[in-house]
């Protein structure tokens, strides 16, 4: 779960790494007031996307009047698909030096990794390999000041002691947010020296969604469409795509594979929907309604029964068919595994003949979509 820049900065500040003086505002008058208090400011749209600068989401104002007019422009605007609801109005710092600093997880070494570079402020992917440090920590032992001192030294900079101490402090704070807040990424770009002090000029923090149960003080930040939210509430995974064949399957890997297969046969998937998180009849029926609401040309259902029972899914289909009085969209269903015979019988009663072979079913779905009337597809 990605959180807003200002929230990430608050967390970092709790552990000793300050952000520039600033205020979060949600109306233009507040922005003007903040600029009155602070002086020349940078105004940053609080949206869950990087590269705001290139899309006009980061602006500078020298006077309260300027701040107000920029705020009026930004608030309510849509930047990179996100509605701007809040702005961070921050002191425009005199920047002496910029760094890149991040802590994340290296799946190769199965350990936390600190990434640092003295080439801050630019896209880190454009920084040459030899100017990027990667320091791994022991997952059990954690972080210590000596590790931060080693990083500072290896950054190879000619710093005075005060600056070194500030940088050590910043690294420790960043790691602590990572560790204490169950983050999977804490990224500060740039981390800046302004005079003798260090500041997090930006903050990208992603919290492990699986750890939210114990990070209740971090507010829930939404980054989903209405349909994705609906699916999440049902305990199932749903991602919207741009094609015309709606897909429902159980298991993330097989669902991904089905999307690939549809493309392989010349079709286009309308979504990714993995129902393995909730496989009873009721949940499956609700999931099916989500697909129907999107008005696809074809619905393709693949159930490989394990703990998911084929008859439950078949009953869900029967139920939705009855409730909607009829399902207009053609449905291709493939059932294998636990209670597959009972499932197929129920489907036959609804007039649907279930497939056994996955590729055959996928090819059929693509064929049906190709011949479906265009109007059905929203």
């Amino acid at each position, binding site marked *: 779960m990605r959180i807003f820049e200002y929230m990430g900065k608050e967390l970092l500040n709790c552990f000793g790494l300050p952000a520039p003086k600033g205020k979060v505002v949600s109306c233009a008058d507040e922005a003007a007031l903040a600029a009155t208090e602070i002086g020349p400011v940078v105004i940053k749209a609080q949206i869950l996307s990087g590269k705001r600068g290139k899309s006009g989401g980061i602006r500078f104002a020298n006077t309260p009047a300027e701040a107000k007019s920029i705020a009026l422009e930004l608030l309510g605007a849509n930047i990179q698909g996100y509605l701007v609801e809040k702005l961070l109005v921050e002191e425009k710092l005199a920047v002496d030096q910029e760094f890149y600093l991040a802590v*994340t997880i290296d799946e190769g070494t199965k350990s936390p990794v600190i990434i640092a570079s003295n080439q801050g402020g630019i896209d880190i992917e454009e920084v040459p390999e030899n100017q990027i440090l990667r320091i791994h920590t022991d*997952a059990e032992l954690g972080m210590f000041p000596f590790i931060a001192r080693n990083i500072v030294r290896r950054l190879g900079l000619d710093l005075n002691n005060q600056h070194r101490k500030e940088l050590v402090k910043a690294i420790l704070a960043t790691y602590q947010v990572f560790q204490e807040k169950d983050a999977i990424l804490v990224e500060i770009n740039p981390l800046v020296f302004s005079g003798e002090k260090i500041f997090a000029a930006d903050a990208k923090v992603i919290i*492990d969604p699986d750890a939210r149960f114990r990070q209740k003080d971090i507010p829930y930040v939404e980054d989903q469409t209405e349909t994705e939210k609906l699916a999440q509430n049902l305990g199932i995974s749903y991602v919207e795509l741009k094609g015309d064949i709606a897909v429902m399957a159980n298991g993330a890997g097989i669902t991904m594979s089905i999307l690939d297969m549809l493309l392989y046969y010349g079709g286009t998937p309308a979504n990714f929907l993995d129902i393995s998180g909730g496989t009873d009849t009721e949940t499956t029926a609700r999931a099916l309604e989500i697909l129907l609401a999107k008005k696809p040309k074809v619905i393709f259902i693949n159930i490989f*029964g394990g703990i998911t029972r084929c008859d439950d899914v078949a009953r869900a289909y029967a139920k939705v068919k009855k409730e909607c009085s009829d399902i207009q969209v053609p449905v291709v269903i493939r059932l294998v595994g636990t209670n597959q015979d009972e499932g197929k019988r129920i489907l036959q009663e609804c007039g649907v003949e279930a497939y056994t072979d996955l590729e055959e079913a996928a090819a059929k779905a693509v064929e049906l979509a190709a011949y479906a009337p265009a109007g059905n597809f929203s």
Partner: protein
Amino acid sequence: MHQQVILVKGKVLMAIIVNQNTKVIVQGITGKQGSFHTRQMLTYGTKVVAGVTPGKGGITLEGVPVYDTVQEVLENHQVDATVIFVQSAIAKDAVLEALEAGIGIVVVITEHIPVHDALKFISYAQRKRAILIGPNTFGIISSGKCKIGIPPNQFFIPGPVGLVSRSGTLTYEISEKLVTAGFGQSTAVGIGGDCVKGLTFTEILKLFEADPETNAVVLIGEIGGNAEEEASVYIKEMTKPVVAYIAGKSAPPEKQMGHAGAIIRRGRGTYQSKVKALSEAGALVAEIPSEVPAKISKLLV
């Protein structure tokens, strides 16, 4: 790594990690998943000797005695492996309980375990020199000998193909196609779907390379992470053929991990990168699942 050599009536029997003598306990046995899959494992022939659910000690489930703690199980049974079905918030406690008690094989089925918890128990497993499979895995199944986990029983029959995968249902799908085409599996292992995992592709491939019952290996991967690229380094050295299938060719680029993730991966993680690495290492890459048995057939028949 661990290669078990077992003498049964004078005959050497091999399998990777588990075999027909492996004694298994189920942590979280009284939950919905735990009890369902205990029944399935018993049906498959797995020697499930006990279960653990704190507060439920004393009862019997599917003929299996249930205890409050792992320590108590070990006082009463010989145990080689444990399978974890407890809910995600308490999974770390359960895994550490098993490791601390000295169990050498820990299979973590539970999904949605906080990754910081997984980092710690994986590190502790390494310290204890234990095999940890998962988390978020379907488990391990040595066909006809032992199943520890959740794969459906009917698609795993003895045969020459080793199978290693990041994904459950996709593995069953491919396994079924293999069985239909006449190829059983020596062992199938799920390394887990989370970003950090205990055993990796490479470690499993090494076991298959050394296993006399395995003649070819199927590797089932996904986009994201480095696992397939890292495995390719070892595949180059293997004498046994590898067929790979990678899911996610059409998936939209992952938004989440952004720059830092990219820095760690250095261009790896995409479908193209994985297929390139595997092909260059000599693996045959299937475009759709049904190509897997076809390629195996060419190699083994």
